[in-house]
């Protein structure tokens, strides 16, 4: 491996305030190889990449490129040295064309003005290398679906002629067929001699793609090994530093009760996104929503929560029809509903506000008398929640945005649990968070349902649906295509019904595409 190493990081440390983000970390990058970086959220992966990409300066340590010591004052300096990063969050400007976006940092000019023809050539070349020839360079980014945008993002990185390409969770927004395409592109880039750093929480992607793997934990480099030399369980143990027993808590045996379902909907219809959906959830039940991304799952959750205007159909709580006109009505005591939203950064939390303010924000009506907040009661409730969810924070008065992703998600869940909801809707609550926290969330869900809550759970991760849910409703084109109960919930059935095809043929092909 060391033969081709051309970029090396040694003894890199970085502190934010009192928090150690990186401690004596090291990494070797070789040309023509795909190097996966693994670790829980908060393990220091992001900081490591930011140091490489010149976004943050390390406190200690050195980096060498081709044997010469270097340091980057800015992301532009790192770009010039050939290190380019595709970040998790999209960095495209929606109102500009694809070509404008690709050439944005260094557009070709003629007589001081942007040379549109040259820019288009550059964009076409980059899109071709990224395997996204179907994207028109003059299309506006805002008109593209999310997965195409991600491809443009990769093309934009390639247009900068990188020697090292870093992909940080770059596939989390992609559909299975796009992931397969991206993988083909990445493998071709590898054969062209690029060094690729690949960060993902999806183990199967890493198994398929990586040549080398490095594991980080608590800001330290724990191990580097050749891909395939360790089992999944061993890798996870390295990542969380403890024995990784069964991920999902056992499901209780269901007994049918005569009580009316806690939550029921009849013939829910909303524009062309929801199409005559009827379903029930009983107390103590975890019901999953499956299917391909964007088949109406999010809209269904929002419909229950009173967000959608012009909704047709009926929603019943404990058998009684309810009109839920806003989240304020949905969280009200008679209904007792909570929604853990999809995007914790824009929908779940106020990032610059403190952990304290965020935790109590959804329960202010319970915590105040005559509009005045009872600070002792607030303090007590918050402590209870921090303990219950084991939220790791340096204090209650720091901005919630400075917590790691997993802990931020715990805050979102905690702020709703503080109300003691009876009906809990979750919109992909484990996206982009680490294995350890995921496991805690699964156990929490089971505990809540055992205590009598009705849980409706949308996940893009099939393993979660299989491991957590008593029943799974598979949505396709805004309608329930299939209901899977108990042992019927397996990957094969989930994929088959998600694609709206019969149980038999061509499923194995789709499974292969899924990864």
């Amino acid at each position: 491996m060391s033969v081709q190493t051309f970029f090396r990081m040694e003894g890199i440390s970085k502190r934010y305030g009192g928090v150690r983000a990186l401690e004596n970390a090291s990494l070797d990058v070789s040309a023509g190889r795909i190097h996966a970086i693994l670790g829980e959220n908060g393990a220091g992966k992001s900081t490591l990449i930011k140091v490489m990409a010149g976004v943050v300066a390390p406190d200690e340590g050195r980096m060498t490129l081709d044997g010469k010591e270097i340091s980057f004052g800015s992301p532009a300096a790192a770009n010039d040295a050939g290190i380019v990063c595709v970040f998790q969050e999209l960095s495209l400007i929606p109102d500009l064309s694809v070509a404008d976006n690709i050439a944005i940092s260094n557009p070709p000019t003629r007589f001081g003005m942007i040379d549109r023809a040259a820019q288009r050539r550059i964009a076409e070349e980059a899109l071709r290398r990224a395997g996204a020839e179907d994207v028109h360079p003059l299309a506006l980014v805002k008109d593209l679906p999310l997965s195409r945008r991600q491809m443009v993002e990769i093309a934009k990185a390639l247009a900068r002629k990188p020697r090292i390409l870093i992909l940080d969770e770059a596939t989390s927004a992609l559909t299975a067929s796009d992931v397969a395409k991206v993988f083909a592109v990445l493998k071709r880039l590898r054969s062209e001699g690029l060094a690729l750093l690949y960060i993902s929480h999806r183990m199967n992607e890493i198994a398929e793609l990586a040549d080398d793997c490095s594991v980080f934990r608590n800001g330290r480099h724990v191990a580097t090994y050749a891909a395939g030399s360790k089992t999944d369980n061993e890798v996870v143990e390295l990542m969380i530093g403890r024995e990784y027993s069964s991920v999902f808590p056992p499901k209780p045996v269901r007994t049918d009760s005569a009580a009316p379902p806690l939550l029921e909907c009849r013939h829910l219809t909303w524009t062309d996104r929801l199409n005559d959906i009827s379903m029930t959830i009983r107390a103590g039940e975890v019901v999953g929503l499956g299917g391909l991304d964007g088949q109406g799952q999010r809209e269904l959750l929002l419909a229950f929560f009173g967000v959608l205007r012009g909704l047709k159909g009926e929603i019943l709580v404990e058998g009684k029809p309810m009109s839920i006109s806003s989240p304020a009505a949905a969280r009200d005591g008679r209904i007792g509903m909570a929604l853990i939203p999809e995007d914790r950064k824009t929908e779940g939390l106020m990032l610059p506000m403190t952990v304290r303010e965020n935790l109590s924000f959804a329960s202010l009506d319970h915590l105040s008398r005559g509009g005045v907040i009872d600070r002792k009661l607030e303090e007590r409730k918050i402590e209870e929640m921090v303990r219950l969810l084991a939220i790791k924070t340096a204090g209650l008065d720091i901005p919630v945005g400075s917590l790691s992703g997993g802990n931020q998600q715990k805050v979102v869940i905690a702020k709703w649990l503080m109300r003691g909801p009876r009906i809990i809707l979750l919109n992909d609550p484990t996206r982009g968070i680490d294995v350890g926290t995921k496991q805690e969330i699964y156990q929490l869900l089971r505990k809540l349902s055992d205590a009598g809550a009705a849980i409706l759970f949308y996940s893009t991760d099939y393993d979660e649906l299989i491991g957590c849910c008593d029943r799974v409703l598979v949505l396709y084109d805004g309608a329930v295509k299939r209901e899977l109960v108990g042992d019927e919930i397996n990957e094969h059935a989930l994929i088959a019904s998600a694609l709206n095809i019969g149980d038999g043929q061509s499923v194995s092909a789709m499974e292969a595409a899924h990864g």
Partner: protein
Amino acid sequence: MSDTTLTGFTARLPKFVRRDPAVATAFACIVLLLLVGSLYSPSFLKVDYLLQQLKVASFLGVIATGMMLVVLLGQIDLSVPWSVAVGAMMACAAAAYGPLGSALAVPFGILCGVLIGLVNGIGVAYLRIPSMIITLATNAVAQGLMVVYTGGFSPQDSATPAMRWLATGFAIPGIPNSVLIWALIGTGTVFLLTRTRFGRSVYGIGNRERAAYLSGIDTRRIVLIAFAICGGLAACGGVLLAGYASKAAQSMGDAYLLPAIAAVVLGGTSILGGRGSYLGTIAGVILITLLQSILSVMQMPEAGRQIIYGIVIVAMLLLYGRSPASR
């Protein structure tokens, strides 16, 4: 990324300074201004002068309080000039209707401001019109209504004795009443912002309206109330000003729009909403008042005053630096 690195020096500063460097900067600038002024004339450090300045500041202070609430929401209220004038003129107009009118002059003036604020609030919260547009429009409408009412001339009614007492009297010897009123409104606002559901909701909406809405906050009602308070406080400032000058005037509010916004922003309240403390607004108000006073004492011509005034505001905003981007 965090900016909470505690070096030895900053760790020893009082808590509010560490949390809010903008407020500290504003107070430091106040001290600096006074020192510079005292080089020019020692009377700048006399108690009389300072109390007089505080009295002048209290009018701006009352108006800026309402502006701060709206700015915290990430909105802006450009109808302040004519909300001030409407408050003043309507209070004086009520005074013309006998003893009952005199008695109700102050509440009536403020009520008219609240009505303007309600129109703004309905426009912003329920009709989703950008606040910059709707408040500019209500400002124009209010101006038109007042011109119709007065026929375009300076209004003939004068302030009631009660209004004069509120603005210039001394309920506690040595401390002007208008300063007391500002202190009262300020205390109420601090309580509102830090201890109540309404206050938390204001900060929440200012930071991320979507998250606040999905948390079950009735965001539209909060926005409506904040605009109503802002209109009411602007009118309240107008009532005090009318009492101070003994009568209302057509364009008496024009001089308060930019200073009110500048005071709020100089005090460290983010113009994008969600961040800021009332202590900062107090500092901003005093700072602006002192700056205006010192420039006029130095007998700077009007043009020069405006230029320096603008430059100082820009310079101080640069001093604060831009806030670190949140993740």
